[in-house]
């Protein structure tokens, strides 16, 4: 256990070595203050099998007994998991997982008994060919959107206990998508190669209603968007993170000019960039702002957390020094901020371990 104290906040970090690679992980909704659960997508390289696991976290914060995580339930999945999302239904949360082979799997977790049950799946055929690079679940937990390397975008609805799938767009490989995020019940944003972002509206099918193409770094190499987030209170702004430590916000109202938050591609920001390599995940960080985010002016981007290939977990804020939470010798593949308890963060490290951070 390590306790770091920065000027404003203290941080507790606990590391839990695992016996397998972790492709993705999420907090599950909290049942009670003492019952915390994590869902993780594990990949065992020895047997080339992948599984979804529910781990429970004992949280009796006494100094003599450090917290432990125990495996509660594990289910083998037919293919490796590329993306993992949970619905925030506290009793029986739904867990959607997209696979490397191009399918979507839906599970439900019973947190009282700690079990994981298969619900339904969308098979590869007619869905995606090749890796599904991103999925997202809508606010009501019943609509899923998926994007893939193959350039397809699909909508999957969960109605009457079954999944039904509908193709929204197929670029026939002209565009490869890397990430997707719902903006509203009918709108979502996809991102991919060349730092491109596309705004889609289901009411206007056939193509994106708005597109962003990066051209701020002429002469330098371009990159890929790996992750997108949209804050529920600011649905017109889309936060994207990708190659070369790049994080930017794209405001639909000022479409031509993205707001750069970090990245080595732009000279005026490289000093402030916490990372120089791929930013794997971005999420708005509600913790620092929960009390005062109404005070942050409309034009400013809300604080965001990133994790990166060069082992950085940091909070970045427009025009300010980034706050580094972790600096690991290996990559941080994914992280999740607990929605109910935004002080808590779980992240997966490349060297087969999990770290849990508590800010106070």
């Amino acid at each position, binding site marked *: 256990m390590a306790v770091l104290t920065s000027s404003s906040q203290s941080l507790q970090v606990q590391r839990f070595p695992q016996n397998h690679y972790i492709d993705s992980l999420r907090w599950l909704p909290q049942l009670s203050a003492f019952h915390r659960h994590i869902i993780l997508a594990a990949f065992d390289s020895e047997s080339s099998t992948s599984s979804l696991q529910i781990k429970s976290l004992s949280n009796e914060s006494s100094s003599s007994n450090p917290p432990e995580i125990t495996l509660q339930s594990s289910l083998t999945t037919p293919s490796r998991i590329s993306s993992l999302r949970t619905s925030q239904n506290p009793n029986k949360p739904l867990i959607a997982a997209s696979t490397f082979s191009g399918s979507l799997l839906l599970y439900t977790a019973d947190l009282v008994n700690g079990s994981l049950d298969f619900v339904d799946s969308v098979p590869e055929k007619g869905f995606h060919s090749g890796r599904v690079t991103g999925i997202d679940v809508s606010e009501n937990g019943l609509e899923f959107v998926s994007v893939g390397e193959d350039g397809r975008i699909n909508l999957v609805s969960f109605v009457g206990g079954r999944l039904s799938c509908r193709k929204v767009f197929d670029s026939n*490989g002209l565009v490869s998508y890397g990430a997707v995020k719902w903006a509203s019940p009918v709108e979502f944003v996809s991102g991919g190669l*060349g730092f491109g972002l596309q705004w889609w509206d289901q009411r206007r099918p056939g193509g994106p209603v708005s597109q962003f193409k990066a051209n701020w770094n002429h002469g330098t190499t371009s990159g890929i968007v790996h992750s997108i987030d949209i804050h529920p209170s600011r649905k017109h702004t889309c936060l994207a993170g990708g190659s070369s430590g790049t994080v930017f916000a794209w405001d639909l109202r000022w479409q031509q000019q993205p707001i750069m938050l970090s990245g080595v591609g732009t000279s005026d920001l490289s000093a402030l960039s916490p990372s120089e390599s791929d930013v794997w995940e971005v999420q708005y960080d509600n913790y620092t702002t929960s009390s005062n985010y109404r005070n942050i002016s409309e034009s400013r981007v809300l604080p965001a957390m990133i994790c990166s290939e060069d082992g950085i977990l940091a909070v970045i804020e427009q025009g300010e020094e980034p706050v580094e939470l972790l600096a690991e010798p290996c990559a941080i593949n994914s992280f999740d901020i607990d929605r109910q308890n935004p002080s808590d963060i779980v992240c997966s490290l490349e060297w087969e371990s999990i770290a849990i951070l508590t800010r106070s």
Partner: protein
Amino acid sequence: MPGLTSESDDLAMVPVTPESENQPVVIYPLHHSLKSPIHRLSISWACGNTLRVSVFRKPQSDTTEGDGEAGGRVVEVKLSSSGDEKVDGARWRRIAYSSVTPFALLQSRKHSLSAASRMSLDNPPYKTECWEHVIEYSKEISSLLSDQKPPPRSIIEDPKSVVNEIAEPMCLKAAWELLEIFYVDKQSQSWIPEQLLDWLADYNSLFSGTLPTVHSKLVDFQQELVGVQVVEEDPNYWDAMSSALAVGWLETVVKLLRLHGSYRFDQLSSRETENGLVEAVAVLISKMPRMRPSLREENLGDCYKTKPDFMKAWEKWRTQISKLDCSSYWLQCDHQQTREGLKNLIQIMLGNPTVLSNATFNWMELLISHFLYVRPFTAGLESMHNSAQKCIQLKPVSSPHKLSGLILGILGENTEVVLAECSRSFGPWMMAHAVELLTAGSTHAEILLHEEHSKLGGVSIEELHRLVYAQVLSSHALTWQIAPIYLTSCIKQGIGLLENMLYKQPVQHSQILLKSIEICRLYELDTISSNIMRIAGVHHWKHGRKGSGVFWLQQARDEFRLNRIAKQLFDFVGKSVSDEGFKQWEGLIELLGSESRTAGGLEFLNKYRDFRRSLLQVHGDTPTDAACNAAEALVSLMKNPSTPQRFWLPLLYDSLKLLMWQERQLLNVSQTQFLLNKLQELSMARLRPDFVEADLPSDALSSVRLALATNLGRAILEE
């Protein structure tokens, strides 16, 4: 080929190594699920430690083709590494991961120190500083080898628990600590025997495989102890104590002595003398002088830092023991077992060789007992080695333990033997990391390890072991990404092997691709990086992901292939294509166009796309304005010098409907004349031998000419 004769459903692959006791033949079943007999096998290495086996059926004749079975299968076989140490894969990887940081830190520190020492001439501070770094490194590695949590300590100590069951210490850690004692820890050179004692106390259990050790004896006795009523009458009680005393586990002996029946309250009065003797021995044991700066928490004895003090104390202690040995109280002690047992303990402390030999089980234990009681002032490796040789003669070993081989190599100051033992018993991880300790410890070893050998391809032994370890790392899908740390510390061959390794990574997996590119960025391997991107680009393009293909080719700045793609786009010009096809084509132009430097002909394609788009919107019933725009686009396209001559006729032929627009003519006189001139120019060009005829109907030229002439006539009339 072995295994091919099998007629069963699945083939088995049998490695053709000669069978030996150490390496039993391993059989890997292949599940290829082909029914008919196998015709051919092809085996190659796949990623990491897996073999790719392609299994082919006999090519079927045409008549039986329709049986629906595949003509072959490719299966991957993962070769499991049969490590000597029983460390599972995950544990091993954890060691590999956590040793990266200490190793890299030490390398960078050594690097900056050697850079600094080249600047200034004062050598000594550099040496000591370097030592401190190596010590830190060694401690860190040693701590990561025991990653298990310590067992929970009970607050109430069990009086009958004499041996702590430690969670199976690893042989690897034992070997590491041994190297640390002898090579790194220079400050405690004077008390090596005591360190060896501590070491044996920690790892004695490792030696108890088939043969007994002091530890195994104590464990056995502890189990017995629960059921025994009067311990002092049990011969095992005295045996256990003499063994523990011989190897210096004083606290265990004292604890056991206090279990003696004479301490019991109801017997104290009747066995007063006996109890006095037991207590006297216990006190003497706990007061034993030790040549060491400090003791571990639970250990007993009196510490002395300097040799004169220690010698003085030792003589005094010995005199006390002799005095007790000759005491008249023994005659008053009527409990025979106690008398004999205590006498035996005294004999051990007096260094009686026969008693010591009886109390110990292998030469290591005997050696420790000699250090403690026979030659307490032993110093220097040579005399220790002599003692060890004597002990081996007294307690010969049939199958030597791997740690004992290592100890003998160290004591014999034979670096080659130490290296060979490490390599044979502990594998590549140990070799790559322990070399740092050896080179820090002795000049001889440093010369030996750093000397470049022509028969090793010009690399030193140190580099060789790093390379071997890097190979092991790169053979696993999860550890390959730490291999670069070790490869880049190899001056001669490292970068070359790193390049090889990066080329071998599968590009189709985007995570691995990005990882490889990141490694290239860190080590400034720009050429490799762009080659990998190029390979990825071609891969994606071939698999129909044109967007990714173009993206990676652009990242690689592969002008050649991008131009090839652009050239393919020209084939589209003048052809009638479906809407879907046009969208694809349009999309590709957009992809290529985003990079301005690959503009070879793209300017034309962009203009052509605009023209084509406006032409597509023109139908018989569209308003004239749209048609007018299309005609404008045609003229500007024809005027543009970047428009290749071979497309002039197809362009005009495409626009026939514009030239013959019903409502009114769309081109004015000068525009029409311009187009006619172009047509004339084309006719002249046709006479040249290198002219390429456009793939158009034979009457295309005449129909265009006719349309233009008609248009010209209408335009003249209009004006």
